[in-house]
């Protein structure tokens, strides 16, 4: 078995880019990733990729090159990027291929996502009566979480404030204006206790990564980042997930907890060794809950960590250093790979104004989404 390295990274700026299709953004990201490691698309032995609403990734070959490579579409909701990466990891680790590319991209219309219940195996009544609304679920989930762990809701505004502060330092972010916690807390209530500025918005963007066998990495780059562990999990009976007309009274660990534990175990690295983390912040409450579910801290410990600045770029446990989903928006197919892109930048020491000080060595990423899935990675330089 070979180890796996990320040798090339490329991104199309997140946010809104009028007149540029999601596919064109994906092609841009792919060319940037190839240029980053000095390879051509004809060197790629495989491709995995996907988008939620911007087209099939395998059709990108008409622009990138008709080389005959196996290019497999991944359609896995919020875990599309993470799933593509895990597939690439397996393709290289198994010895099947030496080098390949993963691409995640998207372009969504404005406003909250609307979803057809039938796609989730739920009756039409669920959508008709106004229960199939993701923003609403997140309000319900964080409300319960705050209650169970005795956390005051004020921390939710502090989390969003940090996201916009980090976004202001990241030239690739969408929202680059700082907003203070008081203004965030006073914004229109979307789903109690979450206000407008505590939610990310559907957006656009693309990320591509070139991966290869670890033992060949230095042929392509001076600063490889190694994918030490990658894991994907779906929900168990008793976990509380989006688009659930009901949940079991007996509680179980979330898919996040299981995916994170599996990724750390595969890497042989403990959560306490993480120097920089990108975790799913669909809204402020998600960052709060996921900090503990991933094992980066204990449940209930977040409030003090956040208030004390430990999760800031200069803190002990920097979280969402690029501004996360809150400052970058959520192009579903691209978000998971954005996190990996950011960690590679951080581990290379190339993040510029939003660089974590002290030469970070271990990076962690986490995505979460409907209908109760999570994908995590552990990266080292």
């Amino acid at each position, binding site marked *: 078995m070979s180890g796996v390295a990320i040798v090339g990274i490329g991104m199309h700026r997140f946010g809104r880019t009028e007149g540029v299709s999601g596919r064109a953004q994906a092609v841009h990201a792919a060319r940037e990733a190839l240029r980053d490691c000095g390879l051509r698309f004809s060197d790629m032995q495989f491709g995995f990729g996907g988008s939620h609403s911007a087209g099939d990734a395998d059709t990108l070959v008409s622009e990138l090159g008709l080389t005959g490579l196996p290019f497999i579409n991944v359609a896995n909701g919020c875990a599309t990027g993470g799933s593509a990466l895990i597939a690439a990891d397996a393709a290289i680790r198994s010895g099947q291929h030496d080098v390949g590319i993963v691409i995640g991209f998207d372009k969504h219309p404005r*406003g*909250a996502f*609307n979803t*057809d*219940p039938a796609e989730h195996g739920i*009756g*039409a*009544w669920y*959508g*008709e*009566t*106004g*229960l*199939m*609304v993701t923003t*609403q679920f997140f*309000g*319900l*989930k964080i*409300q*319960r979480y705050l*209650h169970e762990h005795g956390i005051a809701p004020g921390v939710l505004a502090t989390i969003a404030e940090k996201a916009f502060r980090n976004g202001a330092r990241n030239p690739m972010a969408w929202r680059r204006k700082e907003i203070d916690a008081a203004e965030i807390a006073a914004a*229109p*209530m*979307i*789903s*109690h*206790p979450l206000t407008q500025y505590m939610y990310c918005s559907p957006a656009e963007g693309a990320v591509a990564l070139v991966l290869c066998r670890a033992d060949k990495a230095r042929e392509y780059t001076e600063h490889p980042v190694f994918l030490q562990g990658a894991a994907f999990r779906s929900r168990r*009976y008793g976990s509380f997930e989006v688009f*659930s*007309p*009901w*949940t*079991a*009274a007996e509680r179980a660990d979330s898919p996040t907890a299981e995916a994170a534990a599996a990724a750390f175990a595969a890497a042989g690295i403990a959560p306490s060794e993480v120097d920089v983390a990108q975790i799913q912040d669909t809204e402020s409450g998600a960052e709060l809950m996921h900090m503990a579910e991933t094992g980066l801290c204990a449940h209930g410990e977040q409030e003090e960590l956040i208030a004390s600045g430990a999760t800031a770029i200069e803190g002990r446990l920097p979280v969402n250093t690029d501004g996360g989903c809150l400052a970058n928006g959520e192009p579903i197919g691209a978000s998971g790979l954005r996190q990996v892109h950011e960690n590679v930048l951080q581990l290379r020491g190339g993040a510029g104004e939003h660089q974590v000080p002290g030469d970070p060595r271990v990076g962690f990423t986490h995505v979460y989404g409907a209908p109760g899935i999570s994908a995590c990675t552990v990266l080292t330089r």
Partner: protein
Amino acid sequence: MIAGKTTVDDALFVETAEGPALLGSRCTDCAAHTFPRQGGCPRCTGSAMEDVPLSRTGTLWSWTVQGFRPKPPYTGTENYEPYGVGYVELPGQLIVETRLVETDPAKLEIGMAVELVLAPFRDDEFGWPVHTFAFVAVTA
């Protein structure tokens, strides 16, 4: 029609001596419950499910208030907005997602006793109300 009222989907309900109840499934192997009815057990992976009326009373497990008008497939009409949403724990069965009649955050509290009602959420083309299930605080 359930209890003389037009509903969004009659298959969600069953009439009982105490009034309309939600109709769920119960696994005859491991006693797990689901709502709505389904053929497979998500707990033990078996497929021996039987119909069961769910409790008409429970406790509020979490809550929020829907702060904007959802896009389609939502079909509710404005005269029934805003609306509360919660999860209600039905003792010994499951935790069900539901609309809440109460929309004032100050009057909603995790742990409060609630009971099932049929509540209108839209008017049909002739102006008649269409109902869905909702929970409301139990009045002493």
